[in-house]
C-alpha cells in the first residue's frame, strides 16, 4: 500500500513532469515561436504588413503578393539562452516573510531553424502567388536541475552535503509546414489590397523525464537500498492542422494595414507515461505505465497591425500590432488575452539599419492540482529587441536580431520537500541526512510558492533573397 504522502508526491510529480519547455513553465502550451525572420524579431516580432522579406508570408499570407517580387527564399536560424531562477521565501527572525532567495538556477541553450519560399505572378492589375514555409511553432525543449543540500556547516564556510539531485529534461517541438496562397489587387498607384490563405500541417512529439536521484553520500549515510530513486517519463504525439486568413492593404505611400485571423485548431494529443520508483521500507518497487489521448487546442488568434513609413531624415519603418488570443476557447479557466508589439527600423546610414522593438505577450502557467483542479495563472512577458542587417547584394540580405525577455511569477515548488524526509525510508525517528531536528520537511503549496524569474536572450540570423 502506498503511503498517502507518497501518492500526493507522485501525483504532484506527474503533474509537474509536464512542466518542461524552454521555460519549463510552458510545458503544456509550449514556448511560442514568432516569425523566425531576424528583421521581424528585431522589430518586436512585428510583420503583419511586411513587403520586404520572404518570411513575411509566415506572419501574414497576404504579404506574399504585397511584396512586389517574383520569387523569394529565406532561411533563418535561431539560438535561445534561457535562464530560470527559482527562489524560496525567506522569513526573518520575527517570522515575517521578507523576501525570496534563489535556490536553483538553470541556464540552457536551444536552437532552431525555419525556411520560407514563394513565387508570384503579375497578371494585369491582379497578382497571384503561392508559397510554402516550415517553422517550429511551439518548443517543448527544457532542462532543469536542482540539488537538494542539507546546509550543514554553512555558517562555518563549510560545504553542505548534497542529498539528492532532481532533474527534468524535455525534448520536443510542434512543427508547422504550410502552403500559402495569396491574391493582390492593385486599385491605384499606391493602393493595393491583398488576400492570403495559409493552410498548415501541425505535427510533433515530445519526450520528457523527471528524476530524483539520491546522492552517493545519502546512500552511504543511510545504507544501500534504503532510499528510493524516482523516474517519471512521458511521451506525447501531437497532430493537426491550422487555417489562417490574411489581409494586407497598402493604403498609400506611408500607411499599410495587415491583419490575420487564425482559426482555432484542435490537435490530437496522445500521451504515454510511466512511473518507476525503487522499493522502500515496506513498499514494493513501482513500475506502471498508462496512456491516454486528449484534444489539444490552439486558440483563435486575431491580429491587426499598422505599418507607417513616414518621411524622415533616416528611412524609417514603424510597426504597431495588436493580437488577441482567445484562450477562453480552451476552457473557462482562461481569459482572452491581448498582446501587443511595436517596432521601428531606422536607416542611420544607407544600408545600415538600426532596428528596435518591444512586445508584451501573455501566456498561462497551467497547473493541475492533485484533486484535478486546473489552476491557470497569467504571465506577462515583456521583450525588447534590436538588430541590424548586412547588405550582401541588392536582393540578398543577412539580417541579425537579438531579443531579451523576462518574466516573474509565482509557481509551485517543482519537487516537494517531503520526499527527502529520510525518516520515511529508514523508519527512524530522527533524521540522518539533515543536520538538526528543527527541519520540517513539508511540501510547500500556494501558501509558500516559489518566486520564479526567467530570462531569455535570443539571437537570430536570416538570409533572404528575392528578385
Amino acid at each position, binding site marked *: 500500500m502506498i503511503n498517502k504522502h507518497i501518492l500526493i508526491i507522485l501525483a504532484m510529480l506527474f503533474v509537474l513532469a509536464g512542466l518542461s519547455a524552454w521555460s519549463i513553465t510552458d510545458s503544456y502550451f509550449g514556448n511560442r515561436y514568432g516569425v523566425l525572420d531576424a528583421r521581424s524579431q528585431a522589430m518586436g516580432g512585428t510583420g503583419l504588413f511586411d513587403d520586404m522579406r520572404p518570411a513575411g508570408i509566415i506572419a501574414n499570407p497576404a504579404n506574399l503578393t504585397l511584396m512586389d517580387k517574383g520569387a523569394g527564399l529565406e532561411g533563418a536560424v535561431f539560438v535561445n539562452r534561457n535562464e530560470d531562477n527559482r527562489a524560496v521565501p525567506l522569513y526573518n527572525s520575527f517570522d515575517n516573510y521578507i523576501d525570496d532567495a534563489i535556490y536553483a538556477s538553470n541556464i540552457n541553450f536551444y536552437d532552431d531553424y525555419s525556411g520560407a519560399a514563394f513565387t508570384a505572378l503579375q497578371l494585369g492589375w491582379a497578382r497571384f502567388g503561392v508559397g510554402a514555409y516550415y517553422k517550429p511553432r511551439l518548443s517543448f525543449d527544457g532542462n532543469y536541475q536542482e540539488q537538494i543540500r542539507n546546509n550543514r556547516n554553512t555558517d562555518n564556510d563549510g560545504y553542505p552535503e548534497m542529498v539528492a539531485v532532481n532533474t527534468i529534461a524535455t525534448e520536443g517541438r510542434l512543427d508547422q509546414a504550410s502552403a500559402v496562397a495569396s491574391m493582390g489587387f492593385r486599385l491605384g498607384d499606391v493602393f493595393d489590397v491583398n488576400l492570403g490563405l495559409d493552410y498548415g500541417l501541425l505535427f510533433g512529439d515530445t519526450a520528457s523525464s523527471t528524476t530524483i536521484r539520491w546522492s552517493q553520500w545519502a546512500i552511504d549515510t543511510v545504507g544501500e537500498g534504503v532510499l528510493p530513486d524516482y523516474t517519471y517519463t512521458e511521451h506525447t504525439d501531437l497532430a493537426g492542422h491550422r487555417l489562417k486568413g490574411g489581409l494586407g492593404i497598402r493604403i498609400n505611400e506611408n500607411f499599410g494595414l495587415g491583419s490575420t485571423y487564425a482559426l482555432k485548431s484542435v490537435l490530437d494529443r496522445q500521451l504515454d507515461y510511466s512511473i518507476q520508483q525503487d522499493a522502500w521500507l515496506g513498499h514494493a518497487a513501482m513500475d506502471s505505465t498508462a496512456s491516454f489521448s486528449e484534444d489539444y487546442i490552439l486558440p483563435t488568434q486575431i491580429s491587426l497591425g499598422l505599418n507607417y*513609413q513616414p518621411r524622415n531624415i533616416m528611412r524609417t519603418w514603424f510597426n504597431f500590432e495588436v493580437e488577441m488570443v482567445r484562450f477562453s476557447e480552451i476552457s473557462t479557466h482562461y481569459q482572452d488575452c491581448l498582446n501587443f508589439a511595436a517596432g521601428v527600423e531606422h536607416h542611420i546610414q544607407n544600408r545600415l539599419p538600426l532596428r528596435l522593438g518591444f512586445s508584451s505577450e501573455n501566456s498561462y502557467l497551467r497547473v493541475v492540482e492533485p484533486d484535478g483542479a486546473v489552476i491557470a495563472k497569467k504571465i506577462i512577458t515583456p521583450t525588447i529587441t534590436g538588430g541590424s542587417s548586412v547588405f550582401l547584394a541588392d536582393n540578398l540580405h543577412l539580417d541579425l536580431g537579438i531579443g531579451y525577455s523576462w518574466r516573474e511569477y509565482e509557481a509551485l515548488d517543482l519537487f516537494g520537500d517531503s520526499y527527502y524526509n529520510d525518516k520515511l525510508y529508514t523508519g527512524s525517528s530522527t533524521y540522518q541526512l539533515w543536520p538538526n531536528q528543527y527541519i520540517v520537511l513539508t511540501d510547500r503549496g500556494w501558501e509558500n510558492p516559489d518566486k520564479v524569474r526567467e530570462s531569455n536572450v535570443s539571437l537570430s540570423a536570416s538570409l533572404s533573397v528575392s528578385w
Partner: protein
Amino acid sequence: MKKLLVLLFALLCLGQIAAKVDLNTADLEELLQLPITEKQARDILDYRTYISVFSDIYELREIPSIDQPTLLRIKDLAVVSLYVEEDEVAARREEIRDLLERLDSNEGASEGMSDVWQDYLMTPQNVNKMHFDDFISLPNVSGVDAVGILKRTAQGDTIADMRDLRNSPGLSYYGYTNLRSYVFYREPPVKNRFMWDAQLEYYTRYLEEGAHDMYHESFLRSDYGSSSVTVPNRKDLSYWGWFNMDEVNPDLLVKLRARYGNNYKAGWMYYSPKGETPLREKGPAEIIADSKFFAGYENTELPLLNNSRLKLYLGHYRATFGEGLVMENTDFYSARKTGYGFSKRILGITPDLSRTQEYSLRGAALEITHPWLGVAAWVSQDNKDAVAYVDRDGEIVQENGKDKIFSYVVPTTRFGNEDLREAEAWFNSELQSGSPYATDYINLAYRKDALRETLWGTHLQVNPLIGTKLGFTTYTALYDNAYFVVPDWNDLKMLLVRDSYYYPKFKMIDAEIAGLYSTLTDSYARNYRRVLGFDGQTVIGNVSIQGEYAELSVDGSDFKLGDDPKAYLLSAYTQFDNLYFLTLFRHMDLDFDNPYSNSFSEHERFNDTIIEKNIYALTNPTLADIYLNAPQSQPEHGIYFETRYKFDRFFTIGRSYLDIWERLADARRSVRLQTELEFRPIYQLALRARFKTQTNRYDDYADRGVSKTDEYTFSVRTFLSNRDFLEFEYRYNTVLSPPYTSLTNPAVPGNNTMAGAMTLMTGDYIGVNYTHNFNANLKVQGSLIYWFGHGISHWDWEDMEIDFMGDKGMKAWVALHSRISRNMYLSLKFRNKTYQTQELSIRQYNVPVDGENLYQRVEHKENTIRLSLEYRY
C-alpha cells in the same frame, strides 16, 4: 491645418525649366526621360517620399544607386526647384523641440504641469496682454520679470518682437530666455486650429522600498516565541503573498488630449498602475470613476471686459493659489517647493490629466481674471479613498449613523474592496488563533472610494498695482456619509499599534498623526472641513515679496484670525542678471491638516513617524501608505535661503541653499546646506563639485538622536559635438549617528556585548552618463552606476525619473528616443538593477534563527522597461 506651399523660382529661363526634369515634382514617367535606369528612377522617388525632398542636385549622391557618372550625366538635364513644405504647427514644434524635450524629461516631477506648458509653447500667449499671474506661472519667470514687462505694456508700449522683449527694463536675461518661447508679439506662430495628442505608456516598474516592505509585512499570531508552536511561515499571510505581487504587472497609461487653439480643450486619461484590477475586468462605471477627463473653454478676449480672461472647466481640474497652503491639489509631494525656478506653481484653474487620483477635483470650475482683479470658483464631487475603521468582518464601523473614517490616503495599489476584505479575513484568522493581542484584528484598513466628498471653493484677488496682489482663498469639503475620527495621542497609540509590547515605539513625533483633523470630537460634530487664507505678493524694484496665511477651521471662528490651526509662509526673491537670492520663512501648525495643500517643506508629513519607521508594529502595515504617498508638508518652522551666482563664464555657484528648521511634532532641529561650484574652463568641459550636509538633533541631556550626514559629489561633464554628452560622477557620503542596532550588531543573533559610541557609515557611488545623438531624430541615452550604501540611500536622476538605491549594487539603463515622423515620438527605456540587501536577520526557510543557517546575501534583480508612444498633431 496643414498648408502646402510650393514655390518655384526661375533659376533659368522658362523655356529651360520646361525642358528640364524637376526632381522634386517629377513622377516616374518624367524621371525615366532622364538617362537613368528604372531602378534609379524609383530610388529617386523613394528618396523624395521617405527621406527628404532635394535641396540641390548633388543630394542625388545620397542615393546608393546613383553614382558619380550618373550624376554628371543627368546634372544638366535636371533641376531642383525650391520646395518648401510649410506646416505652421510642424514649424513651431521644430522651433521649440528642445523645450518640449526638457518638459518631457521633467514630467516625473511636475505631474501634469508639462501638459499646460506644452500647450502654451505650441500656442503662445500674447505678451502684450498677459497678466501678472500668467507670467509667474511659467517656468523660470519671476515676479520681477513680469513687472518689467507689465510696466511697459501699461504705459501703452507694445512689445514688437523678441529683441524688443529683451530690452524690457527689469527683465533678467534668465527670465527672458525662458519666457521668449511661451509668448508671441504681433502674430501668433500658430493660428487657431484643431490639435490633438495621444500617448500610450507601458511601464514595468518595481515598488519602492517602503511599499515593498509594507506589503511584505506578515500577519502572525502573537505566540510564535514559544517553541511549542510551529511557525506557519506562509507567504500568503502578507499582502505581497496574498495578492501574488511577484509578477510582472505593468503600469498602463492612455492619454488623449484635443484642443482648438487655446479656446476649446478636452482630454481623457486612463492610468492603470501595477497591481490594480485590469481594465477589462471593470465595468463602465468603474472605468469612468477611475479615469481622468475634462472639457474646457478659455477666452482671453472677453467682450465688454477689456483684457479679461475666462476659463471654464468641467471634469477634472487643478486649482492652485498663493503658496499652496490653502489649495494646491496633487497626490505628489516635492520637497522645497519654492515657487521659483523649476519648482513652479501654475496659478489658477488648469485642466488635470495628471496621475493625481486621490486629491483630484472633479466637477466644474470657473475663473475670470482681469489685470486688476480675479475671481475663481469651483465645485467638485468625487469619492475618495480612505483609511476606515473596520470591524472583525471587514465592515466599516458606524459612528452616529455614518462611516467612521480615519484619514484620506493615496494607496500604493488600489485593491478592490472585496478583494481586500477576503485578504483581511484570512489575516484576521491568523491573528486570532494565538494568545490575544491588544488588538487582534485589522481595525483600520484602506477602502477604495469610501468617502463621498463634495468640495466647493473660491478665490478672490485684487491687483491694485502692477506686481502687487492680494488674494483670499477658501474651500469647504463636505462629507455626507462619514465622520473623520482621530483619537488623541494616548488613544491613538492603542488604535495603531497591535501589541502593547510595541507601545514604546510610539513617540512624540506621532503627534503628527494625532494632529489629523476630526469632524467628530467631544466638543463638536460636523460634516465638513474648511480652510481659508490670504495670500499676497508685491514687487519692489528687483525684489518680489510674497506670502500666504491659512487656517483650518476647527474650534475657532471662521471670521477671526489666530484661533485655529494655522500655516503661513513669507518669502522674498531678489534677482539680478547673474544672481538671485531667495529667503523663505514658513510655519505650519501640527494640527493644520489640509490634504489639499502642497507648500514648501523639507519633508512630507508623517516622515519619521511610526507609520514610516515601525510598520511591523502597526495593526495594519498598509497604514504606511498614509506616509508613503503623503503630498502634505511636514509641520515645520524654519527659514530657508537659496541662491545661484554666476561669477563669470568660468565659475558658477549652482543652486545652493541653507535651511534651518525645527520639526514641530518633536522639536527636532535641523540644518541642511547644499552648495555647488561649477568651473567651465572651456565651453565643452565643466567640472562640478557639490557638497551637502545635514545635521539633525534633539535638545537632550544625553545628546541622543544627533545625526550628521555629509555628501560630496564630483563630476566631469563634457559637451561633445552634435550635442552629445558625457559625464563621470563620483559621490561619497558619510552618516555619523548613534549606534543603530541593525547596522552595528555582530552577524550573530543577540545583543551587543560591548559599549557603543557613535557609528560612522560611509557609502559611495560612481557613475557614467552618456547621450549620443545619431541625428536630429534619434537619440540614445545611457548610464552605468555602481554604488555601495551600507545603510545610506543614494539617489539618481535618470532620463525622466528619480531612482533610490540602497545597500550595494549596480545598475545600467539605456533609453532610446526616436522621432519616427514629424508628429510621432517613440521612447523605449530599459533598466537593469542588481543589488544586494543586508544579510542580517535573514534565515533559511523553516529553520529557526538560532540554527546554523544564515544566508550571506539576498540578491535582487530588477528589469524595468518603459515604452512610450506619442502622437502630437
